[in-house]
């Protein structure tokens, strides 16, 4: 199925949790906040939140800023 991650379309195996996606992308072990269809999904819910076709994800972290 296709989902959108940070604006890019991505093909992923179904079913897949947010935790599994982060693992696949190498982001599981670092600070990363996830927004699924404009709602934040807390880290504790990443393993139990399953993605669906057309989902839109934002994966963000902290960078330098003023």
């Amino acid at each position: 199925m296709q989902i959108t991650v940070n604006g890019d379309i991505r093909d992923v195996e179904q079913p897949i949790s947010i935790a599994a996606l982060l693992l696949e992308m190498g982001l599981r072990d670092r600070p990363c906040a996830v927004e699924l269809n404009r709602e934040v999904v807390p880290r504790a819910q990443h393993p139990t939140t399953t993605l669906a076709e057309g989902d839109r994800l934002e994966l963000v972290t902290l960078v330098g800023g003023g």
Partner: protein
Amino acid sequence: MTTATQPQHAPLRIAGRELSSRLVVGTGKYATFDLMRDALDASGCEVVTVAVRRERLYNDQGRSLLEFIDTDRYTILPNTAGCFSADDAVRVARLGRELLDQLDNPGAGWVKLEVLSDTKTLLPDPIGTLEATKTLIADGFDVLVYTSDDPVMARRLKEVGAASVMPAGSPIGSGQGVLNPLNISLCLEMLKEGDADYPVIVDAGVGGASDVATAMELGADGVLLNTAIANADNPVLMASAMRGAIEAGRMSRLAGRIPKKRYASASSPMRDTIGWIPGE
């Protein structure tokens, strides 16, 4: 009298957090992360601002900002920089809170709110700023809100519950200093009327240490800056200068400066100069 009881050492209280440094320093624009770490250290700050951005999914060979910030030492204040609508700013604030929750940092739950108008001036959009402030407060945030130096807007933001109002000295990164000291002092007067401990931080526009001292002399509780240190020829030395300016400006405020006078007032006695003729 011990130093702890001297008024210039009184901590700054914002939203239940007690800070001994009144300087808040940004983490953007440094040539290297090592330089940033050393400048933060020299500034003596306890609170650092950060931005929230998408993970780079490709070619990310760089190191993470967080490897260079001791999260046990610094409280991280996430900003909503780059947001041009209240909606985006609210989303970014919530993502920032989630990140700081993951880091178990005391910065989780507060936000430096910026809702900007356009990329050229980066001036705050007052309508969007007020809207996002209300939404985030309803969502449980302590909102430290970046605004223009408009005293009426500042008061509106306090009325809806902002934890701190942060008027700009001049546009972000401009280095123009405090362009309208009258407006900043009116902001301070309105925000602190009957509420002297309400925290007001001058945010943005600082170029040099004198700008920091000016803001503190006007009665600000603190100063937030980034570019003035990060883009100085010697950021670590400038960070040290800013640290001194915060203290000098605050002590000058507390000491009570003399009023400005139109004409001179001699410091040396006018009588008994040589050639002085009594009675003339």
